[in-house]
């Protein structure tokens, strides 16, 4: 499987991870996504932080500065109400895409 993040999927991954885990800093998010993807998606900072900025600009997540487990200042991201609604929308859209692609990829019946 390709290690590239499929266009449009990263936003949903980040939103869903925040929904599951609650407020997280960027490094925590990257680790969790790596863990859930069983080592396939090792996001580099050049991918992750612009995505977080984009999501914040869209109002799906909000950030605040806090103190991490090792007593370092870190920016924590959390889901907003709009973000929660967006997960539902994106999940539905993704399900439709999968169903559509399955139709194309399904072998013709005998």
């Amino acid at each position, binding site marked *: 499987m390709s290690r590239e993040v499929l266009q449009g999927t990263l936003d949903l991954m980040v939103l869903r991870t925040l929904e599951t885990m609650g407020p997280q800093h*960027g490094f925590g998010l990257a680790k969790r996504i790596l863990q859930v993807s069983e080592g396939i998606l090792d996001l*580099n*900072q*050049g991918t992750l932080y612009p995505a977080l900025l*984009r999501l914040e600009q*869209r109002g799906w997540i909000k950030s605040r500065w806090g103190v*991490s487990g090792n007593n*370092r200042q*870190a*920016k924590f991201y959390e889901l907003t109400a709009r973000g929660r609604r967006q997960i539902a929308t994106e999940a539905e859209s993704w399900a439709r895409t999968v169903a559509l692609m399955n139709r194309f990829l399904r072998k013709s019946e005998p």
Partner: protein
Amino acid sequence: MIERLLHLFRRRRLERELDIEVQYHLEFLEAEYRERGPSFEAARLEARRHWRSSARSGGVSKSTRRSGGGDSMERYPVQFFTEHEHNQVLDRNSNLFWYRAYTAIADRRLEKRETEGKTPRRESILQRCRKEKRNMNSLETSKHPHDNSHCRYLPAPAYGPSDRRSGCQRVPAAGRLFACVTLMTTLSFAMLFFGSVVYAQQFEVASVRPSPPEALLESFVPTLNLAPGTTFHLRNRQLKELIQIAYGIGGKQIFGPRWLIDPPMAVWEIPRFDIEAKVPMNAKPQDGPMMLRELLAERFHLRAHNEERQITIYGIDLGKSGLKVRPNAGEGGASGCARSLFGQDGVTTAVCSNMTVAQLAQQLQTLSPAYFPEGPVVDKTGLRETYTFTLAWITLQQRDEGADGPSMFDAIEKLGMHLEKQKGKAEVLVVDNIDPKPTDN
């Protein structure tokens, strides 16, 4: 839309925050790599490799626009970069990642130069910059890297306004007072912090007792990944083996008195010890070896130093057919090998839980030292995961007496790994002083 507009106005702040975030991310990565095993320097290199790949992807450069790093980059004069590196920096002046990657390199080179005494220390640079404030305009226009450019070595200002032209700081009186208070507070915290680290590197309470004779056939050697607040148990090991465990080395890597290295007595007569010790609540997993070393120093008056020598090693690598054990999922709990000598058909078994291959390599030398008479066992697989498995083998003495059964080499092959004798450089420990008996509990 409003949010986006606001972000446009807050561009400078956003970029500064992003800078901090990425720095934080990098520190985390470094810490993680260090915890996994490579040296500090290798960790920094690896972290920078990540950064470079980020930079090449171009993701951030598009969205963050100018990093504001251009001015700060000036602090590192051209002589700290190779020509190629410097061209890269110039080409991508706006790219935050390139900037950070190369400032990291420059930092390292600057430190090296400072330790070699080739450049003035930062303190004197600061003083000279203050004296030369009047000449700032000439500094600004100076193209020659050696021409007073030492002012540009200064770190970014922590307080007070800075003169962006030269990188020199203009420090107001109130700022100086604030800096003094901050420095004193930081020092107090640092003293408290380092005090707690020293405390964490010792067991809270520990008992060292001679092992009972009836325990000769059973032993337990834990790894030193000690969880805070737990009790560390170690049963039935010789003093030399305790040193091996504490320093993570093989029997052939220890040099010292003969009674320690090769005791002139039957195996069952060699003194063995049980250790029971309480791990402090503020201990970190990596403190384990240090705590055991401290205990040996306190109770056996062990003093030793390291040397590097060319010796024979036994390298563990992946077998041709690949690994035959699956990595553990999750953290798993206590790790170590429980050995049971001469079980069914004379086969000795060791049930090893939550072990990395590096830990296995270290433990093999105490589980079955006779198989590795010439040197230490060294992990060459590069695997970082933990595994749970059982080793089954017959001792070398049994084989010499004609018994049929798997050797330790066969036992390792069964896991999908391969053990082979090689020549290699390794660190050895030279014992300067040690007592055969521990002081009283």
